[in-house]
């Protein structure tokens, strides 16, 4: 029935108007770890399929879990930091920050490949204080022309 016109990301930002925004909230069932709900919002039903969306959110959840993982590496980093009076972070990046960079790249890639062609845009949760994943739904011009 409905075939969305393919947009490029640049195209999208230049010409499309914001139709709506969907916010994927945090999922606290496992405690205070940063995880997002994988429930598929109804507003996206016409734009993207459930599998694709769930896969994106699941990958993001895995990445955040990796950032906050309590393993020997994080403990060593913590102890080393304490011993150097936390000055070591002036020259070194924390593990968490490294993973956040990975997440930013992943989101960029997903936007370019999957979401922009469907008229959607993912916002990196770090820009929203890790509270929500904001998905901007752009008006589809093929509908209104």
């Amino acid at each position, binding site marked *: 029935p409905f075939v969305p016109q393919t947009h490029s990301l640049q195209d999208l930002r230049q010409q499309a108007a914001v139709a709506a925004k969907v916010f994927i909230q945090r999922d606290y*069932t496992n405690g205070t770890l*940063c995880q997002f709900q994988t429930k598929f919002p109804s507003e996206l039903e016409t734009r993207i399929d459930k599998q694709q969306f769930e896969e994106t959110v699941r990958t993001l959840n895995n990445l955040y879990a990796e950032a*906050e993982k309590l393993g020997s590496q994080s403990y060593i980093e913590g102890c080393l930091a304490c011993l150097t009076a936390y000055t070591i972070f002036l020259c070194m990046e*924390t593990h968490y*920050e490294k993973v956040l960079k990975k997440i930013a790249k992943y989101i960029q890639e997903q936007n370019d490949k999957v979401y922009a062609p469907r008229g959607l845009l993912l916002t990196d949760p*770090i820009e929203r*204080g890790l509270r*929500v994943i*904001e998905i901007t739904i752009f008006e589809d011009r093929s509908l209104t022309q």
Partner: protein
Amino acid sequence: MKNCEYQQIDPRALSVSPLSAQSHTEKKDQRPRRKWEVFPGKNRFFCDGRLILARQSGVLPLTLGLIVVTCGLFFAFDCPFLVKHLTVFIPVIGAALFVFVVISLLRTSFTDPGILPRATPDEAADIERQIDTSGSSTYRPPPRTKEILINQQVVKLKYCFTCKMFRPPRTSHCSLCDNCVERFDHHCPWVGNCVGKRNYRFFYSFIISLSFLTSFIFGCVIAHITLRSQAGKSLVQAIQESPASVVELVICFFSIWSILGLSGFHTYLVASNLTTNEDIKGSWSGKRGSEESGNPYSYNNIITNCCVTLCGPVPPSLIDRRGFVPPDEVIPAASSASEMELPHFSAKNDVNMCTQSTKDVLERMVNSGSQTLCSPGTPKTTPLVQELPGTAAPSPEPPPSAGCPGLLDSRCPFFSRSSEKDSLHSINPAFRLASPSPSLTRTAVTLNGAADVGFMPLHPGSARDEAP
């Protein structure tokens, strides 16, 4: 052309967030503004946003003063004697402890404790909608709590009216700093900052090292006075020879009780993965029977709890103090608005003007004062071109010759024509975000005629504000 029709703004989405209101009203400085400058909480920033402190610095100067003075007296008066009679390691250990204490204290005071940025207007509107759909037809403020299951235990999340979001678990709103802080422990006046997720380990190392330091100094001073009085003199004489020691003794004596007590208390909290806040409120104790441990965050293992709290990974500051405030604020469409001012548009005079955020244009018009200065033509493209996405700045003051950029000039296509659908689309996000902050409504009022056509329908909120 349907694409040009403006979509009605949901009035509930136009809650004025201090963030957008502040940065829109302050137009004096021309340079791009960093986010810390428009931060809504009660905090103070130093070193261009690198250091953060609560607005009420409390007794931090007193704390620092006490530590420095006591150690100074120690090194000046007790150490020479002790080095001669005991060992040279005494000042060495003392110095090491002193340095560690001061660094921990400064780290605790100047680190972001885990402040959560306030919800954007869109998010707040979305949450409101979700709450209200389950509410009644007449507006009755709902209780605003949400219950969730954490590790099979029911936890209530409260809605924060200031930050406009449901607080994550273990987050609390500090009234002194006016911020929601993650894993909020307490607001410490001695340190002049909240103690939360990101600086708890510094706070803990501060009190532990301070306990060691005060005990060390206390012990050394006692040893000093004892040694002096042993060498054939009475105690009174020994004290008279070294009066500074008495001062140190008194300070240390009173500090030790409180500091050691505090250290012990916090060691207990760390071992059971609790916060002061939870302990005081009794969130997890005495409620359930024998089955449940109570605290759903505890790993039920002292070592693990300690490791997690003190050595676990810590996210970077979520408030992004040193980032630049985007011209249209807040949503990704804002960055897309600036990206739309691409070079291939710069040739067109009118489109350039249209891609300005509405606020900037209005403000400039008001600032320039007289409408007679309207001089359309190429000069006004220059200031506009300067504002292209190289900076995320609000528009700089145009040179006087450009004056009023022809807003009320009939040649301005922005008001007279709606055929420039791209320009309108670029304005849409700006309109969505331009909450009815006071300056906007005022400038909207000062414009007559043509302006009204362009603006009034887009700000249903402003219509309300203007009513006497």
